[in-house]
């Protein structure tokens, strides 16, 4: 019974891990064109909209650690702090958003993802030879592809996690806010 209470959290963690694996495989094939896709906001959408604050924060933090350990970032990490921040922003706005996703959610995802990628680029650019202008075209294409993935898969991924949560956990969840 105790474990059943944590099923939505486990669903969120496992779904994030599977999505991360999917992105890893996609990026493996995209490396032929030296492109890399990142969709950090996709990982915090379900935890922020459907889990309690603490559980959502835990999922975001662990997912951030998972991503930072796979990428050549500093020891302080980037996603370890970025994902909880994105979670906090989305959680604060969740009363105004549809829990099942929708146009408002997609817009929020697009904006927050774009900002996160720009911050990452700003942090990494000083180490790049020739500065930002040397690889602007490739960078824009990468960001565009990332935004496109979010547009196409954002609501689907959220819906998938919600359905999985319901399959394994039929009782009414006290941690969820009523649907707007």
């Amino acid at each position, binding site marked *: 019974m105790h474990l059943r209470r944590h099923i939505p959290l486990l669903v969120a963690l496992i779904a994030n*891990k599977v999505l991360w*694996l999917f992105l*890893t*495989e996609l*990026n*493996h094939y*995209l*490396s*032929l*064109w*030296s*492109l*890399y896709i990142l969709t950090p906001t996709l990982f915090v959408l379900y935890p922020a909209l459907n889990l309690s604050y603490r559980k959502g*924060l835990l999922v975001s*933090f662990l997912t951030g*650690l*998972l991503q*930072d*350990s*796979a*990428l*050549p970032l500093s*020891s*302080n*990490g980037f996603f*370890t*702090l970025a994902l*909880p921040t994105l979670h906090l922003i989305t959680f604060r706005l969740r009363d105004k958003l549809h829990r099942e996703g929708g146009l408002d959610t997609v817009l929020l995802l697009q904006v927050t993802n774009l900002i996160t990628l720009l911050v*990452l*680029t700003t942090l*990494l650019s000083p*180490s*790049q*030879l*020739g500065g930002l202008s*040397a*690889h*602007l*075209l*490739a*960078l824009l*294409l*990468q960001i565009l592809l990332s935004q496109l993935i979010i547009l196409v898969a954002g609501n689907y991924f959220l819906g998938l996690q919600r359905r999985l949560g319901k399959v394994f956990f039929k009782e009414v969840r006290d941690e969820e806010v009523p649907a707007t």
Partner: protein
Amino acid sequence: MLFLAWALLPIPVKKAVRNGFHEFQAPSWEALSWGRDLQNFWAGRTNRHSELISQGRDLARLNGAFRLQVMENDSLRQELQRMEALLDLPPRPRYRYEVARVTHRQIGTWWHEMVVRKGRDDGITEGNGVVYAGGVVGKVQKVYEGTSIVRLVTSPGFRMPATLHGQTQPLFIQGMQHGSIGKPTGRVRNVPISSNVTPENPGYLVSTSLGQVFPNGLHIGKVEHLEQSSNGLFREGKVQFPSELYNLNEVAILVPLASTTNTAPKRN
């Protein structure tokens, strides 16, 4: 609160957490890689017998040519050792070639690296050189239990000594992310003023053993145009690396052998 706790955590603890999460993920990456290999295996099974026979015949011819080269190399190596002993020269670095499959590549504007399916268990250490049939790939950046991260020669933070083919003057190569999609590029610096290259007569860059990471003479890339450097003492230009660098599925890691041993390197 979480931010503060994470910020105050000592760096060694953060590194340990990071390593733990990497090791936790490594089996899933390996599973993906094995899955791709299996996919290729089944795709290969669908080939017609006549295709396989012709491919086998081509490979047999190549094997024959390579066997002759290996014999020639062995006799040259023995000759070299004899000369070194005669002249009392310090021993040249020798390497064991550890062949490793690529689990996945992470190449974009933010980073250029790949993860391979060999690690500490196979004697690989940080800083080992990584090569493939077409030349230099990069260096081992980080080693884990059964996986290693390879930083590619195109990575902006990558630097290595090199020479122009047929010359001895050392110069250095730096990775560079260029706006063109899928074209591995870099920058060559400290090229002597006397060196002249043109698109019709490009300069081929080869590795040098000066950095103690790669043996002499491995192909790195070509340079077609050189311009005056800002200090006016040297020339510099854009390096074009082989395009297959972004499409590698197997690489060989150069593990240095102890200088006292005179055994020939293991062939793969």
